[in-house]
């Protein structure tokens, strides 16, 4: 069974587009990513709704904590991911199904790795 | 003072080699000075040349 992964990233991470990544077979077809001006804009509700809309795992890829374009955006995002973890845990889900990744400016490689990590977590949770 | 019939060419790439050849043909003695152990410069590293794809060497 294929798992559905939803990602959130900021303007400064993952410069290569999802379509190109899919075309090159680097990410699964059932992967979708939302680009925000800054991951600091992200809300806990967005993460929960991603699950609600069918995602098996959700991740956020923001800037490295000390090089966030907006100073503390990715730090905030990480905390919100933490709260989302708590809520899904209360719901009996594996809190690893939502995760924050810190990525160097413009880099796409670590984001693709994040997708793969989430795929394997989702598959493990599914089995 | 009589003029020298010799010329120094500094650099043995394609420009230097061509200058030296023409000067020799024109009746001058040429000192072709090159840092490396062989002449040819960057052109010797090229495989083919644009636009005819002629061999570079």
């Amino acid at each position, binding site marked *: 069974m294929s798992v559905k992964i939803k990602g959130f990233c900021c303007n400064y991470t993952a410069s290569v587009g999802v379509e190109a990544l899919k075309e090159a077979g680097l990410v699964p077809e059932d992967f979708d990513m939302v680009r925000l001006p800054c991951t600091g804009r992200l*809300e*806990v509700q967005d993460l*929960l709704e991603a699950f*609600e809309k069918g995602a098996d795992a959700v991740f956020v890829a923001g800037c490295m904590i000390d090089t966030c374009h907006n100073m503390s955006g990715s730090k905030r995002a990480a905390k919100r991911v933490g709260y989302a973890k708590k*809520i899904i845990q*209360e*719901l*009996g889900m594996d809190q690893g199904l939502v995760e924050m990744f810190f990525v160097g400016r413009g880099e796409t490689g670590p984001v693709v790795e994040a997708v793969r990590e989430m795929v394997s977590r989702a598959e493990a949770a599914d089995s | 003072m009589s003029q020298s019939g010799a010329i120094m060419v500094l650099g043995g790439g394609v420009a230097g080699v061509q200058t030296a050849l023409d000067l020799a043909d024109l009746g001058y003695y040429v000192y072709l000075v090159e840092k490396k152990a062989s002449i040819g410069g960057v052109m010797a590293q090229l495989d083919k040349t644009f636009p005819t794809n002629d061999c570079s060497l």
Partner: protein
Amino acid sequence: MIIAERKPVNELLDMISGVKKLLVLGCRGCVAICSAGGDKEVGIISAALRLGRSRMGEPIEIEEATLVRQCDPEYLEPLPDMAKDYDAVLSTACGVGVNFIADRCEGVNVLPGLNTTFYGANLSSGEWIEMCAGCGSCVLHLTGGLCPVARCAKSLSNGPCGGSTGGKCEINPSVPCVWHRIYDKLMDRKEEKRLQEIMPIRDWTTAGHGGPRRRLREDLLP
């Protein structure tokens, strides 16, 4: 303000089992400020509940709304009309809000979304601390503005207990001993005389152990 916190999601899910249409009703008063029941929290709780129910294979229809205050009749007025299409209303106000709705709005099945915890203040972002017990007889003028009723674990009136060490409370060493702080403060203000005075035995009748308290003000009554 009144401090409250979200009930665990599974407890809420239990509470709403069988409910098909739910209104999650926020309050923009104290609970909004202490990030427990404002618009944003309503969204989070709703999302969590929808997710939980859909994972249970029992999808639920949830609407979200927020009132300015749930403890004021004028804001509560439209509620019965709003609520009539729902099996239940999950109030994310403090207990006052939930009670008030239950009291006033006939036919509304109101459920608490939060645990109301204490009267407190915002210490720093994300940290609240109790400051007042609402005992009905203030002694703050005698204690440098620091309340021994709410902030002393034993609500002592005449100085610290024997367990206060290094300025910390015996019950919870991460909490400062309020009497230690009262002492420091009064000494600084050179009001050590105050400390000599023995506080009379407290009248606890105002502390609400005799049924719900009520307050009237003649000049304002209709």
